[in-house]
Protein backbone atom coordinates (compact mmCIF):
# COMPACT_ATOMS: atom_id res chain seq x y z
CA UNK A 1 0.00 0.00 0.00
CA UNK A 2 1.28 3.47 -0.82
CA UNK A 3 0.44 5.05 2.53
CA UNK A 4 -2.34 7.38 1.44
CA UNK A 5 -5.71 6.45 2.84
CA UNK A 6 -8.32 6.49 0.13
CA UNK A 7 -10.86 8.44 2.15
CA UNK A 8 -8.81 11.55 2.86
CA UNK A 9 -9.19 13.02 -0.63
CA UNK A 10 -11.95 15.42 -1.52
CA UNK A 11 -12.96 17.28 -4.64
CA UNK A 12 -10.70 20.14 -3.52
CA UNK A 13 -7.50 18.32 -4.46
CA UNK A 14 -5.73 19.72 -7.49
CA UNK A 15 -7.12 17.44 -10.20
CA UNK A 16 -5.18 15.80 -12.99
CA UNK A 17 -7.08 16.57 -16.18
CA UNK A 18 -7.01 14.36 -19.23
CA UNK A 19 -6.04 16.57 -22.24
CA UNK A 20 -8.08 14.45 -24.67
CA UNK A 21 -11.40 14.10 -22.87
CA UNK A 22 -13.28 15.65 -19.95
CA UNK A 23 -12.24 13.09 -17.33
CA UNK A 24 -10.22 14.23 -14.30
CA UNK A 25 -8.43 12.23 -11.65
CA UNK A 26 -7.24 12.54 -8.07
CA UNK A 27 -3.90 10.86 -8.70
CA UNK A 28 -1.37 11.15 -11.46
CA UNK A 29 -1.22 7.35 -11.66
CA UNK A 30 -4.98 7.18 -12.33
CA UNK A 31 -4.57 9.66 -15.16
CA UNK A 32 -1.68 7.61 -16.57
CA UNK A 33 -3.80 4.44 -16.43
CA UNK A 34 -6.75 6.20 -18.02
CA UNK A 35 -4.60 7.57 -20.85
CA UNK A 36 -3.13 4.14 -21.49
CA UNK A 37 -6.56 2.50 -21.60
CA UNK A 38 -8.66 5.13 -23.38
CA UNK A 39 -6.15 6.98 -25.56
CA UNK A 40 -3.55 4.26 -26.14
CA UNK A 41 -2.84 5.38 -29.71
CA UNK A 42 -1.97 8.96 -28.80
CA UNK A 43 0.55 8.35 -26.01
CA UNK A 44 3.93 10.09 -26.03
CA UNK A 45 6.95 8.08 -24.90
CA UNK A 46 6.84 9.77 -21.51
CA UNK A 47 3.17 8.92 -21.08
CA UNK A 48 3.78 5.34 -22.11
CA UNK A 49 6.49 5.06 -19.46
CA UNK A 50 4.11 6.65 -16.92
CA UNK A 51 1.43 4.14 -17.92
CA UNK A 52 3.80 1.20 -17.46
CA UNK A 53 4.89 2.55 -14.07
CA UNK A 54 1.29 3.08 -12.98
CA UNK A 55 0.41 -0.45 -14.04
CA UNK A 56 3.26 -1.82 -12.01
CA UNK A 57 2.14 0.17 -8.99
CA UNK A 58 -1.42 -1.07 -9.53
CA UNK A 59 -0.22 -4.69 -9.76
CA UNK A 60 1.68 -4.24 -6.51
CA UNK A 61 -1.40 -2.87 -4.76
CA UNK A 62 -3.56 -5.65 -6.19
CA UNK A 63 -1.13 -8.30 -4.97
CA UNK A 64 -1.34 -6.80 -1.49
CA UNK A 65 -5.12 -6.66 -1.72
CA UNK A 66 -5.34 -10.30 -2.81
CA UNK A 67 -3.34 -11.33 0.23
CA UNK A 68 -5.63 -9.35 2.51
CA UNK A 69 -8.73 -10.75 0.80
CA UNK A 70 -7.36 -14.26 1.17
CA UNK A 71 -6.70 -13.64 4.86
CA UNK A 72 -10.25 -12.34 5.25
CA UNK A 73 -11.65 -15.40 3.46
CA UNK A 74 -9.71 -17.80 5.68
CA UNK A 75 -10.80 -15.87 8.76
CA UNK A 76 -14.49 -15.89 7.75
CA UNK A 77 -14.40 -19.53 6.69
CA UNK A 78 -12.78 -20.94 9.80
CA UNK A 79 -14.61 -18.45 11.98
CA UNK A 80 -17.95 -19.78 10.80
CA UNK A 81 -16.74 -23.36 11.00
CA UNK A 82 -15.80 -22.91 14.65
CA UNK A 83 -18.95 -21.00 15.51
CA UNK A 84 -21.08 -23.71 13.92
CA UNK A 85 -19.10 -26.45 15.67
CA UNK A 86 -19.77 -24.85 19.06
CA UNK A 87 -23.32 -23.64 18.58
CA UNK A 88 -24.91 -26.79 17.14
Amino acid at each position, binding site marked *: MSGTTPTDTTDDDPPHDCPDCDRRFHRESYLALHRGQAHGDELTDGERAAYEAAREE*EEEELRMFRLQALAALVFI*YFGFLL*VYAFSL
Partner: protein
Amino acid sequence: MRHARLRTAGASLLLGSLTLALAGRTAAHGGSLRSEPARSLAIPLWLFLSTGGGAVGVSFLLTSFVTDRDFIRSVNDRRRTLGLPAGLRRGLTVAARLVGLVGLGAVLVVGMLGPADPLRNLAVLVVWVGWWAGYTMTTYLVGNSWPALNPWRVALDLRQRLPAPDITYPDRLASWPAVLGLLGFVWLEVVSPLADDPRLLASVVAAYTVVTVAGAYALGSVWFERVDPVARVFAAYGAVAPLYRDEDGSLGVRVPGTGLEDAGLVRGRSDVAFVVALLWVTTYDGLVATPPWRAFARAVVGIGVPPALLYPLALLAGFGLFLALYRIAIRRGRRSAESYRDPETLARRFAPSLLAIAAGYHVAHYLGYFIELSPALLGALTAPLAPGAPVAVVLPTWFSAVSLGFVLLGHLGAIWVAHAVAYDLFPSRMQAVRSQYALTAVMVFYTMTSLWIVSRPYAAPPFV
Protein backbone atom coordinates in the same frame (compact mmCIF):
# COMPACT_ATOMS: atom_id res chain seq x y z
CA MET B 1 -8.53 -35.06 1.79
CA ARG B 2 -9.23 -33.77 5.27
CA HIS B 3 -9.42 -30.27 3.94
CA ALA B 4 -11.91 -31.32 1.28
CA ARG B 5 -14.09 -32.98 3.88
CA LEU B 6 -14.00 -29.89 6.07
CA ARG B 7 -14.97 -27.77 3.15
CA THR B 8 -17.91 -29.98 2.25
CA ALA B 9 -19.07 -29.96 5.85
CA GLY B 10 -18.84 -26.18 6.01
CA ALA B 11 -20.66 -25.68 2.75
CA SER B 12 -23.46 -28.07 3.62
CA LEU B 13 -23.90 -26.41 7.02
CA LEU B 14 -24.15 -23.02 5.40
CA LEU B 15 -26.61 -24.15 2.74
CA GLY B 16 -28.62 -26.25 5.13
CA SER B 17 -29.07 -23.49 7.64
CA LEU B 18 -30.16 -20.94 5.09
CA THR B 19 -32.52 -23.46 3.54
CA LEU B 20 -34.37 -24.11 6.75
CA ALA B 21 -35.58 -20.59 7.10
CA LEU B 22 -36.38 -20.03 3.48
CA ALA B 23 -38.82 -22.91 3.52
CA GLY B 24 -41.67 -20.79 4.77
CA ARG B 25 -41.08 -17.82 2.53
CA THR B 26 -43.60 -18.26 -0.25
CA ALA B 27 -46.56 -18.23 2.11
CA ALA B 28 -46.46 -14.48 2.48
CA HIS B 29 -46.77 -13.95 -1.25
CA GLY B 30 -49.44 -14.08 -3.86
CA GLY B 31 -51.99 -13.20 -1.25
CA SER B 32 -53.25 -16.13 0.78
CA LEU B 33 -53.62 -18.69 -1.98
CA ARG B 34 -51.95 -21.36 0.10
CA SER B 35 -51.61 -22.27 3.72
CA GLU B 36 -48.36 -21.37 5.41
CA PRO B 37 -45.97 -24.17 6.30
CA ALA B 38 -44.41 -24.21 9.74
CA ARG B 39 -41.16 -22.31 10.01
CA SER B 40 -38.42 -23.33 12.32
CA LEU B 41 -34.75 -22.50 12.66
CA ALA B 42 -32.28 -25.15 13.71
CA ILE B 43 -29.60 -22.57 14.54
CA PRO B 44 -29.68 -19.33 16.57
CA LEU B 45 -31.06 -16.36 14.67
CA TRP B 46 -27.86 -14.30 14.94
CA LEU B 47 -25.89 -17.14 13.37
CA PHE B 48 -28.45 -17.59 10.63
CA LEU B 49 -28.33 -13.87 9.77
CA SER B 50 -24.55 -13.60 9.88
CA THR B 51 -24.18 -16.70 7.70
CA GLY B 52 -26.35 -15.08 5.02
CA GLY B 53 -24.45 -11.80 5.30
CA GLY B 54 -21.16 -13.71 5.31
CA ALA B 55 -22.07 -15.54 2.11
CA VAL B 56 -22.57 -12.21 0.32
CA GLY B 57 -19.34 -10.79 1.74
CA VAL B 58 -17.42 -13.88 0.68
CA SER B 59 -18.81 -13.64 -2.85
CA PHE B 60 -17.50 -10.09 -3.02
CA LEU B 61 -14.03 -11.20 -1.92
CA LEU B 62 -14.01 -14.08 -4.39
CA THR B 63 -15.17 -11.84 -7.25
CA SER B 64 -12.43 -9.33 -6.47
CA PHE B 65 -9.87 -12.00 -7.36
CA VAL B 66 -10.94 -11.67 -11.00
CA THR B 67 -8.72 -8.79 -12.09
CA ASP B 68 -8.28 -9.40 -15.80
CA ARG B 69 -9.88 -6.46 -17.61
CA ASP B 70 -9.96 -8.24 -20.96
CA PHE B 71 -11.66 -11.28 -19.49
CA ILE B 72 -14.32 -9.18 -17.72
CA ARG B 73 -15.00 -7.32 -20.94
CA SER B 74 -15.09 -10.54 -22.99
CA VAL B 75 -17.86 -11.97 -20.78
CA ASN B 76 -19.99 -8.95 -21.64
CA ASP B 77 -19.00 -9.01 -25.33
CA ARG B 78 -19.93 -12.66 -25.81
CA ARG B 79 -23.11 -11.92 -27.75
CA ARG B 80 -24.65 -13.46 -30.81
CA THR B 81 -27.40 -12.28 -33.11
CA LEU B 82 -30.23 -14.68 -33.80
CA GLY B 83 -31.39 -14.38 -37.38
CA LEU B 84 -35.12 -15.01 -37.10
CA PRO B 85 -36.98 -14.92 -40.46
CA ALA B 86 -39.21 -11.86 -40.74
CA GLY B 87 -42.30 -13.97 -41.49
CA LEU B 88 -41.82 -16.11 -38.38
CA ARG B 89 -41.30 -13.02 -36.25
CA ARG B 90 -44.47 -11.40 -37.52
CA GLY B 91 -46.38 -14.64 -36.93
CA LEU B 92 -45.06 -14.91 -33.37
CA THR B 93 -45.94 -11.29 -32.66
CA VAL B 94 -49.50 -11.73 -33.89
CA ALA B 95 -49.89 -14.99 -31.94
CA ALA B 96 -48.55 -13.36 -28.76
CA ARG B 97 -50.91 -10.40 -29.11
CA LEU B 98 -53.84 -12.80 -29.58
CA VAL B 99 -52.85 -14.80 -26.48
CA GLY B 100 -52.62 -11.55 -24.52
CA LEU B 101 -56.03 -10.32 -25.66
CA VAL B 102 -57.76 -13.66 -25.09
CA GLY B 103 -56.12 -13.89 -21.65
CA LEU B 104 -57.28 -10.41 -20.69
CA GLY B 105 -60.82 -11.18 -21.89
CA ALA B 106 -60.86 -14.45 -19.94
CA VAL B 107 -59.68 -12.76 -16.75
CA LEU B 108 -62.39 -10.10 -17.03
CA VAL B 109 -65.23 -12.50 -17.90
CA VAL B 110 -64.37 -15.43 -15.61
CA GLY B 111 -63.39 -13.05 -12.81
CA MET B 112 -66.89 -11.60 -12.88
CA LEU B 113 -68.91 -14.73 -13.70
CA GLY B 114 -66.78 -17.70 -12.64
CA PRO B 115 -66.71 -19.56 -9.30
CA ALA B 116 -66.04 -17.43 -6.21
CA ASP B 117 -63.49 -19.92 -4.82
CA PRO B 118 -60.09 -18.36 -5.72
CA LEU B 119 -58.43 -21.76 -6.25
CA ARG B 120 -61.04 -22.67 -8.84
CA ASN B 121 -61.35 -19.31 -10.51
CA LEU B 122 -59.43 -18.95 -13.74
CA ALA B 123 -58.97 -15.19 -13.33
CA VAL B 124 -57.20 -15.52 -9.97
CA LEU B 125 -55.09 -18.44 -11.17
CA VAL B 126 -54.14 -16.81 -14.48
CA VAL B 127 -53.20 -13.48 -12.89
CA TRP B 128 -51.30 -14.75 -9.86
CA VAL B 129 -50.00 -18.19 -10.86
CA GLY B 130 -49.79 -17.97 -14.64
CA TRP B 131 -48.86 -14.35 -15.05
CA TRP B 132 -47.30 -12.81 -11.95
CA ALA B 133 -45.43 -15.97 -10.90
CA GLY B 134 -44.90 -17.98 -14.09
CA TYR B 135 -44.76 -15.39 -16.83
CA THR B 136 -42.61 -12.97 -14.80
CA MET B 137 -40.04 -15.76 -14.39
CA THR B 138 -39.75 -16.05 -18.17
CA THR B 139 -38.99 -12.33 -18.46
CA TYR B 140 -35.68 -12.63 -16.61
CA LEU B 141 -34.87 -16.28 -17.37
CA VAL B 142 -35.60 -16.08 -21.11
CA GLY B 143 -36.36 -12.57 -22.32
CA ASN B 144 -38.86 -9.73 -22.05
CA SER B 145 -41.70 -10.71 -24.38
CA TRP B 146 -44.17 -8.30 -22.76
CA PRO B 147 -44.15 -5.75 -25.61
CA ALA B 148 -45.44 -8.55 -27.89
CA LEU B 149 -47.87 -10.07 -25.39
CA ASN B 150 -49.13 -6.87 -23.73
CA PRO B 151 -52.83 -6.72 -24.76
CA TRP B 152 -53.10 -3.04 -23.82
CA ARG B 153 -50.73 -2.12 -26.63
CA VAL B 154 -53.70 -2.30 -29.00
CA ALA B 155 -54.23 1.29 -27.85
CA LEU B 156 -51.14 2.16 -29.91
CA ASP B 157 -52.67 0.59 -33.03
CA LEU B 158 -55.87 2.54 -32.37
CA ARG B 159 -53.81 5.69 -32.04
CA GLN B 160 -52.37 5.15 -35.51
CA ARG B 161 -55.75 4.58 -37.15
CA LEU B 162 -57.87 7.15 -35.32
CA PRO B 163 -57.24 10.86 -34.83
CA ALA B 164 -54.93 10.96 -31.82
CA PRO B 165 -54.60 13.86 -29.40
CA ASP B 166 -51.35 15.75 -29.70
CA ILE B 167 -50.03 15.59 -26.15
CA THR B 168 -46.31 15.46 -25.46
CA TYR B 169 -45.15 13.73 -22.30
CA PRO B 170 -43.42 16.24 -19.97
CA ASP B 171 -39.76 15.21 -19.74
CA ARG B 172 -39.35 16.33 -16.16
CA LEU B 173 -41.84 13.65 -15.03
CA ALA B 174 -39.33 11.03 -16.27
CA SER B 175 -40.22 7.62 -14.80
CA TRP B 176 -41.70 8.95 -11.55
CA PRO B 177 -45.27 7.93 -12.53
CA ALA B 178 -44.06 4.33 -12.90
CA VAL B 179 -42.38 4.48 -9.46
CA LEU B 180 -45.61 5.73 -7.89
CA GLY B 181 -47.62 3.18 -9.85
CA LEU B 182 -45.46 0.30 -8.65
CA LEU B 183 -45.71 1.41 -5.03
CA GLY B 184 -49.45 1.90 -5.49
CA PHE B 185 -49.96 -1.59 -6.88
CA VAL B 186 -48.07 -3.20 -4.03
CA TRP B 187 -50.05 -1.16 -1.50
CA LEU B 188 -53.27 -2.38 -3.14
CA GLU B 189 -52.04 -5.98 -3.14
CA VAL B 190 -51.20 -5.80 0.57
CA VAL B 191 -54.32 -4.06 1.87
CA SER B 192 -56.97 -5.72 -0.30
CA PRO B 193 -57.91 -9.39 -0.87
CA LEU B 194 -56.79 -9.23 -4.52
CA ALA B 195 -55.74 -12.89 -4.53
CA ASP B 196 -58.89 -14.12 -2.79
CA ASP B 197 -61.70 -12.25 -4.41
CA PRO B 198 -62.12 -12.88 -8.17
CA ARG B 199 -64.72 -10.11 -8.50
CA LEU B 200 -62.40 -7.53 -6.94
CA LEU B 201 -59.52 -8.75 -9.08
CA ALA B 202 -61.57 -8.44 -12.27
CA SER B 203 -62.65 -4.91 -11.29
CA VAL B 204 -59.05 -3.87 -10.67
CA VAL B 205 -57.99 -5.35 -14.02
CA ALA B 206 -60.89 -3.52 -15.70
CA ALA B 207 -59.91 -0.23 -14.06
CA TYR B 208 -56.28 -0.77 -15.07
CA THR B 209 -57.45 -1.50 -18.63
CA VAL B 210 -59.40 1.76 -18.85
CA VAL B 211 -56.50 3.83 -17.48
CA THR B 212 -53.85 2.10 -19.62
CA VAL B 213 -55.79 2.20 -22.89
CA ALA B 214 -56.69 5.86 -22.36
CA GLY B 215 -53.14 6.76 -21.35
CA ALA B 216 -51.46 4.88 -24.20
CA TYR B 217 -53.96 6.30 -26.67
CA ALA B 218 -53.26 9.83 -25.48
CA LEU B 219 -49.49 9.63 -25.06
CA GLY B 220 -48.33 6.87 -27.40
CA SER B 221 -45.57 4.37 -26.67
CA VAL B 222 -43.97 6.68 -24.08
CA TRP B 223 -46.80 5.52 -21.81
CA PHE B 224 -45.28 2.03 -21.62
CA GLU B 225 -41.73 3.37 -21.33
CA ARG B 226 -42.35 5.89 -18.57
CA VAL B 227 -45.77 5.57 -16.93
CA ASP B 228 -47.04 1.98 -16.94
CA PRO B 229 -45.43 0.20 -13.93
CA VAL B 230 -46.21 -3.28 -15.32
CA ALA B 231 -44.36 -2.74 -18.60
CA ARG B 232 -41.50 -1.16 -16.65
CA VAL B 233 -41.18 -4.13 -14.29
CA PHE B 234 -40.90 -6.54 -17.22
CA ALA B 235 -38.47 -4.28 -19.07
CA ALA B 236 -36.30 -4.14 -15.93
CA TYR B 237 -36.40 -7.91 -15.45
CA GLY B 238 -35.78 -8.40 -19.17
CA ALA B 239 -32.38 -6.73 -18.76
CA VAL B 240 -31.29 -9.77 -16.71
CA ALA B 241 -32.34 -12.22 -19.41
CA PRO B 242 -30.14 -13.93 -22.02
CA LEU B 243 -32.44 -13.02 -24.96
CA TYR B 244 -32.51 -9.35 -25.90
CA ARG B 245 -33.28 -6.95 -28.74
CA ASP B 246 -30.41 -4.78 -29.93
CA GLU B 247 -30.75 -1.25 -31.30
CA ASP B 248 -31.86 -2.31 -34.79
CA GLY B 249 -34.53 -4.57 -33.32
CA SER B 250 -33.01 -7.96 -34.11
CA LEU B 251 -32.91 -10.70 -31.49
CA GLY B 252 -29.64 -11.58 -29.76
CA VAL B 253 -28.28 -13.88 -27.06
CA ARG B 254 -25.89 -12.83 -24.29
CA VAL B 255 -24.53 -14.23 -21.05
CA PRO B 256 -27.42 -13.89 -18.53
CA GLY B 257 -27.00 -10.79 -16.37
CA THR B 258 -24.47 -9.05 -18.58
CA GLY B 259 -27.22 -6.86 -20.02
CA LEU B 260 -27.18 -5.11 -16.62
CA GLU B 261 -23.75 -3.69 -17.44
CA ASP B 262 -25.13 -1.58 -20.31
CA ALA B 263 -24.66 2.13 -19.69
CA GLY B 264 -27.99 3.23 -21.15
CA LEU B 265 -30.23 0.92 -19.16
CA VAL B 266 -30.97 3.29 -16.26
CA ARG B 267 -31.46 6.79 -17.63
CA GLY B 268 -31.77 9.05 -14.61
CA ARG B 269 -32.76 9.54 -10.99
CA SER B 270 -36.28 8.26 -11.54
CA ASP B 271 -35.02 5.04 -13.12
CA VAL B 272 -32.69 4.50 -10.16
CA ALA B 273 -35.69 5.03 -7.89
CA PHE B 274 -37.68 2.48 -9.87
CA VAL B 275 -35.01 -0.21 -9.46
CA VAL B 276 -34.75 0.49 -5.73
CA ALA B 277 -38.56 0.44 -5.47
CA LEU B 278 -38.67 -2.96 -7.17
CA LEU B 279 -36.29 -4.33 -4.55
CA TRP B 280 -38.07 -2.59 -1.66
CA VAL B 281 -41.56 -3.85 -2.52
CA THR B 282 -40.35 -7.45 -2.27
CA THR B 283 -39.14 -6.71 1.25
CA TYR B 284 -42.25 -4.73 2.21
CA ASP B 285 -44.52 -7.49 1.00
CA GLY B 286 -42.83 -9.94 3.38
CA LEU B 287 -42.35 -7.46 6.21
CA VAL B 288 -46.06 -6.68 6.71
CA ALA B 289 -46.77 -10.40 7.22
CA THR B 290 -44.51 -10.78 10.29
CA PRO B 291 -45.42 -10.68 14.00
CA PRO B 292 -43.07 -7.74 14.75
CA TRP B 293 -44.96 -5.69 12.15
CA ARG B 294 -48.24 -6.72 13.77
CA ALA B 295 -47.00 -5.51 17.16
CA PHE B 296 -45.65 -2.31 15.62
CA ALA B 297 -48.90 -1.64 13.72
CA ARG B 298 -50.98 -2.16 16.87
CA ALA B 299 -48.76 0.22 18.84
CA VAL B 300 -48.85 2.90 16.15
CA VAL B 301 -52.62 2.67 15.72
CA GLY B 302 -52.88 2.67 19.54
CA ILE B 303 -51.33 6.15 19.71
CA GLY B 304 -53.87 7.48 17.23
CA VAL B 305 -52.47 7.01 13.70
CA PRO B 306 -55.36 6.07 11.37
CA PRO B 307 -54.91 2.47 10.10
CA ALA B 308 -55.63 3.61 6.54
CA LEU B 309 -52.52 5.80 6.63
CA LEU B 310 -50.26 3.23 8.26
CA TYR B 311 -49.56 1.06 5.21
CA PRO B 312 -48.89 3.80 2.64
CA LEU B 313 -46.76 5.70 5.15
CA ALA B 314 -44.67 2.63 5.95
CA LEU B 315 -44.38 1.86 2.24
CA LEU B 316 -43.09 5.36 1.47
CA ALA B 317 -40.85 5.56 4.54
CA GLY B 318 -39.18 2.24 3.77
CA PHE B 319 -38.74 3.21 0.13
CA GLY B 320 -37.15 6.49 1.20
CA LEU B 321 -34.84 4.62 3.56
CA PHE B 322 -33.74 2.16 0.86
CA LEU B 323 -33.15 4.96 -1.63
CA ALA B 324 -31.18 6.98 0.92
CA LEU B 325 -29.05 3.96 1.85
CA TYR B 326 -28.29 3.29 -1.80
CA ARG B 327 -27.31 6.92 -2.42
CA ILE B 328 -25.12 7.01 0.68
CA ALA B 329 -23.40 3.80 -0.44
CA ILE B 330 -22.74 5.31 -3.87
CA ARG B 331 -21.29 8.50 -2.36
CA ARG B 332 -19.09 6.60 0.04
CA GLY B 333 -17.94 4.30 -2.74
CA ARG B 334 -17.07 7.32 -4.84
CA ARG B 335 -15.01 8.75 -2.00
CA SER B 336 -13.13 5.54 -1.29
CA ALA B 337 -12.44 5.12 -5.00
CA GLU B 338 -11.07 8.69 -5.13
CA SER B 339 -13.16 9.48 -8.16
CA TYR B 340 -14.31 12.73 -9.76
CA ARG B 341 -17.14 10.88 -11.48
CA ASP B 342 -20.55 12.46 -11.04
CA PRO B 343 -22.40 10.62 -8.21
CA GLU B 344 -25.49 10.60 -10.46
CA THR B 345 -23.59 8.64 -13.11
CA LEU B 346 -22.36 6.16 -10.53
CA ALA B 347 -25.87 5.73 -9.11
CA ARG B 348 -27.19 5.08 -12.61
CA ARG B 349 -24.50 2.59 -13.56
CA PHE B 350 -24.60 0.52 -10.36
CA ALA B 351 -28.40 0.43 -9.94
CA PRO B 352 -29.04 -2.37 -12.51
CA SER B 353 -26.97 -4.82 -10.45
CA LEU B 354 -29.82 -4.73 -7.90
CA LEU B 355 -32.13 -6.19 -10.55
CA ALA B 356 -30.24 -9.48 -10.42
CA ILE B 357 -31.02 -9.64 -6.68
CA ALA B 358 -34.67 -8.78 -7.29
CA ALA B 359 -34.90 -11.54 -9.92
CA GLY B 360 -33.25 -14.02 -7.54
CA TYR B 361 -35.77 -13.27 -4.81
CA HIS B 362 -38.61 -13.48 -7.30
CA VAL B 363 -37.68 -17.04 -8.31
CA ALA B 364 -37.21 -18.01 -4.68
CA HIS B 365 -40.66 -16.70 -3.79
CA TYR B 366 -42.63 -17.87 -6.78
CA LEU B 367 -41.08 -20.99 -8.32
CA GLY B 368 -42.52 -23.32 -5.68
CA TYR B 369 -45.81 -21.41 -5.65
CA PHE B 370 -46.03 -21.74 -9.44
CA ILE B 371 -45.28 -25.48 -9.47
CA GLU B 372 -47.67 -26.21 -6.60
CA LEU B 373 -50.60 -24.41 -8.17
CA SER B 374 -49.98 -25.13 -11.86
CA PRO B 375 -52.31 -28.21 -11.84
CA ALA B 376 -55.07 -25.97 -10.51
CA LEU B 377 -54.28 -23.49 -13.27
CA LEU B 378 -54.41 -26.25 -15.91
CA GLY B 379 -57.68 -27.52 -14.47
CA ALA B 380 -59.22 -24.06 -14.68
CA LEU B 381 -57.88 -23.58 -18.21
CA THR B 382 -59.56 -26.75 -19.45
CA ALA B 383 -62.91 -25.89 -17.89
CA PRO B 384 -62.96 -22.11 -17.23
CA LEU B 385 -66.50 -21.79 -15.91
CA ALA B 386 -66.89 -25.14 -14.13
CA PRO B 387 -63.49 -26.44 -13.02
CA GLY B 388 -63.16 -29.54 -10.85
CA ALA B 389 -61.68 -29.59 -7.36
CA PRO B 390 -58.25 -27.90 -7.38
CA VAL B 391 -55.21 -30.18 -7.28
CA ALA B 392 -51.90 -29.02 -5.81
CA VAL B 393 -48.44 -30.51 -6.23
CA VAL B 394 -46.69 -31.27 -2.94
CA LEU B 395 -43.08 -30.21 -3.20
CA PRO B 396 -40.30 -32.29 -1.64
CA THR B 397 -38.48 -30.70 1.28
CA TRP B 398 -35.23 -30.32 -0.65
CA PHE B 399 -37.01 -27.91 -2.94
CA SER B 400 -36.36 -24.98 -0.61
CA ALA B 401 -32.64 -25.53 -1.26
CA VAL B 402 -33.30 -24.82 -4.92
CA SER B 403 -35.01 -21.56 -3.95
CA LEU B 404 -32.06 -20.67 -1.76
CA GLY B 405 -29.74 -21.40 -4.67
CA PHE B 406 -31.55 -18.78 -6.74
CA VAL B 407 -31.26 -16.17 -3.99
CA LEU B 408 -27.51 -16.78 -3.79
CA LEU B 409 -27.25 -16.79 -7.59
CA GLY B 410 -29.00 -13.42 -7.71
CA HIS B 411 -26.54 -11.97 -5.18
CA LEU B 412 -23.57 -13.46 -7.03
CA GLY B 413 -24.87 -12.00 -10.28
CA ALA B 414 -25.29 -8.59 -8.67
CA ILE B 415 -21.75 -8.65 -7.29
CA TRP B 416 -20.35 -9.69 -10.65
CA VAL B 417 -22.27 -6.96 -12.49
CA ALA B 418 -21.14 -4.28 -10.02
CA HIS B 419 -17.57 -5.59 -10.36
CA ALA B 420 -17.67 -5.39 -14.17
CA VAL B 421 -19.28 -1.92 -14.10
CA ALA B 422 -16.63 -0.67 -11.66
CA TYR B 423 -13.88 -1.93 -13.99
CA ASP B 424 -15.56 -0.06 -16.80
CA LEU B 425 -15.83 3.17 -14.78
CA PHE B 426 -12.45 3.49 -13.10
CA PRO B 427 -8.97 3.38 -14.64
CA SER B 428 -7.33 1.74 -11.62
CA ARG B 429 -8.45 -1.74 -10.57
CA MET B 430 -7.87 -0.82 -6.93
CA GLN B 431 -10.36 2.03 -7.41
CA ALA B 432 -12.82 -0.52 -8.74
CA VAL B 433 -12.37 -2.74 -5.68
CA ARG B 434 -12.60 0.15 -3.22
CA SER B 435 -15.70 1.57 -4.89
CA GLN B 436 -17.51 -1.65 -3.94
CA TYR B 437 -16.91 -1.65 -0.17
CA ALA B 438 -19.91 0.48 0.73
CA LEU B 439 -22.21 -1.15 -1.80
CA THR B 440 -21.24 -4.61 -0.56
CA ALA B 441 -21.95 -3.51 3.01
CA VAL B 442 -25.43 -2.40 1.91
CA MET B 443 -25.98 -5.73 0.14
CA VAL B 444 -24.96 -7.60 3.29
CA PHE B 445 -27.40 -5.47 5.29
CA TYR B 446 -30.13 -6.14 2.74
CA THR B 447 -29.55 -9.91 2.80
CA MET B 448 -29.66 -9.97 6.58
CA THR B 449 -32.89 -7.95 6.62
CA SER B 450 -34.49 -10.29 4.10
CA LEU B 451 -33.37 -13.38 6.01
CA TRP B 452 -34.69 -11.88 9.24
CA ILE B 453 -38.07 -11.40 7.56
CA VAL B 454 -38.19 -14.91 6.11
CA SER B 455 -37.30 -16.43 9.48
CA ARG B 456 -40.33 -14.79 11.18
CA PRO B 457 -43.50 -16.86 11.34
CA TYR B 458 -46.34 -15.77 9.07
CA ALA B 459 -48.86 -13.38 10.60
CA ALA B 460 -51.65 -11.94 8.49
CA PRO B 461 -51.25 -8.15 8.14
CA PRO B 462 -53.52 -6.40 10.68
CA PHE B 463 -56.03 -3.59 9.90
CA VAL B 464 -56.60 -4.56 6.26
